[in-house]
């Protein structure tokens, strides 16, 4: 058996464990999917480069950028919403939404995210477009790269690199503007007054853009990105993916003889592919589902007057049905997509509910662990608490603090009078966290056990908003 194998097959010279990078030269193509891709790219570019410049008035002393993730102010601004670090679960929610959304899209239509919206695809597409404009289309570029260095090659290559670098710098800076006030940061960076962080991160993101979109390209999708490796688990035989109708395409050939399939083996589908795969070999993990090969094949089929969509967005089950001559059925509603949809809706509803009922007042109470309690000269037991009030409204507020659930208990707050009282008034500046040391004392006779449950009740004196916090009151072992 072994002998047969070696006899019938070629024996390579010597095995190399490392493959030389084969440059992909994607050819230009027009068509429905190419147009869609340009529209999506335009929308992404508009979102990325324009949104940080949208202004939103929040009043005196507050940032007026509509979307801003401020590290220095520790706030996430989104139009009229201000998210505090304590509410980081909203970010978790958005990430869960993104993940489930991605699963749903993949279950419905395969790698649409990869093919149309992924940053790697979009930026690579733009970089290749620049390359094509300067060096020419596929064949020209191949000859150009193989040809010797002359003045024409030097200036074209330099111009390409220059435009790439400028675009990378714009991309890098564009990222910074989501985290810092855009107009002032741009001005500072242009006049050389930016901070190390601003320049450093701009450089970092520019460098990664330049390397990943200019050089690494499809290598990122094939070797670096984990998504292609497990997205196979998200789709099934009913998901729409880029398929080749082998049943009518094969045997491929250029001859006009009988019994020849529709595929004329022009290789245009391979030439336009940004990752350099041959879709006619079936679905493969290198395929990012951009559907440019669909455009390529249709352009040829139109010219030849043959039926369109030899390469098409279709499901594996439909292809099998077509091959048998059955009627293909679109099955977008399946157990899998229903499950993802329910999950997606649940998270959306949860997030919306959370945002609509979001309180702009929060309290954190930390009971002292040491000492657990102290006995006072008059025999009373006293516990200490660190009381934090998060006032998320950007005007100063006044609150009234009271306790319930502990008979005969009195309050005192460090810095606000020494005599124990029933309620205290606490002032908190706008948009800040105020920390108070609160002492609660109660007669030892009222304590039935070592730990008594009690409750802090904080009332906004103006709006009447009430926040409660369950805590405990410790005493000696009984």
């Amino acid at each position, binding site marked *: 058996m072994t002998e047969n*194998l070696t006899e019938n097959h070629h024996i390579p010279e*010597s*095995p190399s464990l*490392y*493959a030389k990078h084969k440059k992909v030269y994607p050819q230009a193509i027009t068509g429905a999917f190419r147009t869609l891709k340009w529209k999506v790219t335009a929308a992404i570019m508009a979102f990325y480069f324009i949104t940080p410049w949208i202004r939103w008035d929040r009043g005196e002393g507050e940032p007026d950028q509509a979307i801003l993730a401020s590290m220095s102010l520790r706030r996430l601004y989104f139009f009229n919403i201000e998210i505090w670090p304590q509410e980081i679960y909203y970010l978790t929610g958005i990430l869960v939404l993104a993940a489930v959304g991605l699963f749903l899209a993949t279950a419905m239509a395969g790698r649409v995210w990869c093919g149309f919206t992924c940053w790697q695809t979009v930026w690579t597409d733009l970089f290749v477009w620049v390359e094509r404009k300067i060096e020419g289309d596929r064949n020209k570029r191949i000859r150009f790269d193989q040809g010797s260095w002359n003045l024409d090659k030097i200036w074209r290559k330099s111009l390409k690199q220059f435009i790439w670098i400028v675009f990378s710098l714009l991309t890098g800076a564009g990222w910074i503007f989501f985290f810092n006030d855009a107009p002032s940061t741009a001005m500072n960076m242009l006049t050389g007054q930016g901070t190390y962080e601003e320049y450093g991160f701009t450089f970092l993101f520019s460098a990664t853009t330049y390397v990943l979109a200019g050089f690494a390209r499809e290598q990122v999708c094939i*070797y670096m990105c984990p998504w292609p490796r497990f997205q196979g688990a998200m789709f099934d035989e009913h998901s729409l993916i880029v398929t080749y109708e082998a049943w009518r395409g094969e045997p491929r050939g250029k001859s006009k003889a009988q019994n020849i399939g529709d595929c004329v083996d022009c290789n245009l589908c391979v030439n336009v592919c940004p990752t350099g795969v041959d879709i006619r070999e079936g679905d493969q993990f290198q395929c990012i589902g951009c559907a440019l090969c669909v455009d390529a094949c249709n352009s040829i089929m139109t010219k030849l007057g043959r039926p369109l969509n030899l390469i098409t967005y279709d499901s594996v089950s439909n292809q099998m049905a077509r091959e048998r001559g059955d009627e293909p059925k679109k099955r977008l509603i399946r157990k899998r997509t229903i499950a993802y949809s329910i999950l997606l809706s649940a998270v959306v509803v949860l997030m919306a509910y959370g945002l609509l009922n979001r309180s702009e007042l929060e309290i954190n109470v930390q009971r002292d662990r040491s000492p657990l309690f102290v*006995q*006072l*000269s008059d025999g009373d037991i006293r516990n*200490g608490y660190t009381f934090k009030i998060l006032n998320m409204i950007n005007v100063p507020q006044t609150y009234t603090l009271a306790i319930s659930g502990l008979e005969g208990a009195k309050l005192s707050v460090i810095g606000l009078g020494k005599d124990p009282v029933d309620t205290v008034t606490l002032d908190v500046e706008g948009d800040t966290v105020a920390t108070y040391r609160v002492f609660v004392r109660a007669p030892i006779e009222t304590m039935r056990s070592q730990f008594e449950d009690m409750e802090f009740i904080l009332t906004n004196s103006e709006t009447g908003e009430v926040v409660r916090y369950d805590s405990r009151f410790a005493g000696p072992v009984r």
Partner: protein
Amino acid sequence: MVKMEVKLMANIERDEVSGTDTTGHEWDGIKELNTPLPRWWLWTFYASILFAVVWWVLYPSWPTLNTYWKGTLAYSSRVDLANDLTARDNEPQRAARVKKIASMPIAAISEDKDLREFAAAGGRVIFADNCAPCHGSQGSGAPGYPVLADDDWLWGGSLEAIETTIRYGIRSTHDDTRVSEMPVFGTDYLSKTQIADVTEYVLSLTNKSKDSSAAMRGAEVFAGDCAACHGEKAEGGRDFGAPKLSDGIWLHGDSREAIIAQVTKPKHGVMPTWQGRLDDVAIKEVAVYVHSLGGGE
């Protein structure tokens, strides 16, 4: 029959299923497909090795027999920290506050909300480093070491009194130290019965006595021998650091045996003087912090 064979030469085949070549290696009949890594991957590996070598030269890295290679940049995280601390001390807002604390009397510091919070925050760290070993974290106390979070004070709980105690200590080596000594009643003055009686009296003050006639006898002993320092009503005497005996708070234990032992042969706690060990600002900061623990007067 299976023929055992050692293959020295690479025997490369093409796998029919995947259409991929094997590496030619074989282990117990298991062959390996050759799916080569991209070559640039290899170059990034070499680049990271190079990065490490450059790092060794620039930064502290290899140990030598007596010392270590300090790197051409002479980087040291310790020096970094020292620089950071100097920068912190020179930070204008902080420097201004420290200057104010140094020049102002402690009561005035406490009245200024900003200064009080600044001092208490600094004092918290200094307390944890220097005072907590005896007084417990946040002044929770231990037998023999007073609780600082309650409202019972031996030498006074005002800011000034606390500052004085910290500065000069109690029974310390400083000339201005707070000092007092409870007589050794067991050997010099009182009989065992008298001590038992006076203990019974003291316990009766917090309703813990079981023998009222002994307590009555003890009241006389107390009036004669103890009231001079501890007060007529056992309310304590801060001039002598004499504890209040009519509350439920006991420094050396609240059992009958502990009280008898303390009357018979008293223990005297010692608190060191912190002058010279902590600077003036630090002492004030700790005083403000201790005052804020809950018992400040």
